[in-house]
């Protein structure tokens, strides 16, 4: 089980923020459109079960469009800074940290 979980977690599924917003708009619009069409069709057919079927079809379609991380949701990646790899800077940071800790203890 753990091996399966690890493999599942290793598959990248992230979207950037603009992509998430786009995904949310897409599924909301799809489901609402299918709901309106389904309601009209059910009213015409005099069967409420047709409305439910059409709404479930809309749900499946929006799942297919927004659950996997398609490339359109990754068009605006966050501009992270490049990682800096100076060991000198790391040791300076450590001494600053310990200095700060000592001050807090004396309080």
């Amino acid at each position, binding site marked *: 089980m753990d091996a399966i979980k690890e493999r599942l977690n290793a598959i990248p*599924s*992230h*979207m950037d923020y603009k992509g998430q917003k786009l995904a949310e708009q897409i599924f909301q619009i799809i*489901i609402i459109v299918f709901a309106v069409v389904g309601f009209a069709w059910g*009213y015409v057919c005099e069967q409420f079960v047709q409305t439910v079927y059409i709404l479930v079809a809309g749900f499946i379609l929006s*799942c297919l469009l927004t659950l*996997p991380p398609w490339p359109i949701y990754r068009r605006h990646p966050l501009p992270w800074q490049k990682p800096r790899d100076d060991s000198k800077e790391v040791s300076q940071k450590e001494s600053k940290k310990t200095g700060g800790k000592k001050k807090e203890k004396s309080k």
Partner: protein
Amino acid sequence: MNTVLSRANTIFAFTLSVMAALTFCCFLTTAMNDHLSPIKIDVNKIIVKNVQDFSTTRDKNDLGFITFDLQADLQHLFNWNMKQLFLYLTAEYTTPNNKLNQVVLWDKIIRRGENARLDYRSLHSKYYFFDDGKGLRGNQNVTLTLSWNVIPNAGTLPRISGVGAKTFQFPEEYTPGNARI
């Protein structure tokens, strides 16, 4: 919305909310219906006996036997929000013992899609017509009404009485023994 599970959760919750809103709209489309319909009842044989009612006290109570005709066309009551109709035939009368008595004699469930045009002749009652005491013999004013309980897909469940009731009288004498109708 960063992970697949989070997105799936959001989409599913949104779908359920939309489904609830659609069900409410379905209720709104039929909320103004009055579910009325004319009906026709006739009574054929009327007999009253005095027998011991084993479900109550040791006294003998009046037991009525009737057969009736029933015609009604309830097809127009069914719509996309109507799941089934529960029909019941009630006999209503007054006795010196009780001011108002209502006894259900017969019932039927009509589901959507089944035949809703009723045409029964000489139908026997389904349930015993026992009285609480001896108030049926010679009772001049026993009224039969057909009512239905509306069971929708979404909404309230009102009880509506059909338009048209039949009043009849019980004979003054008991029919003895095991006389069958």
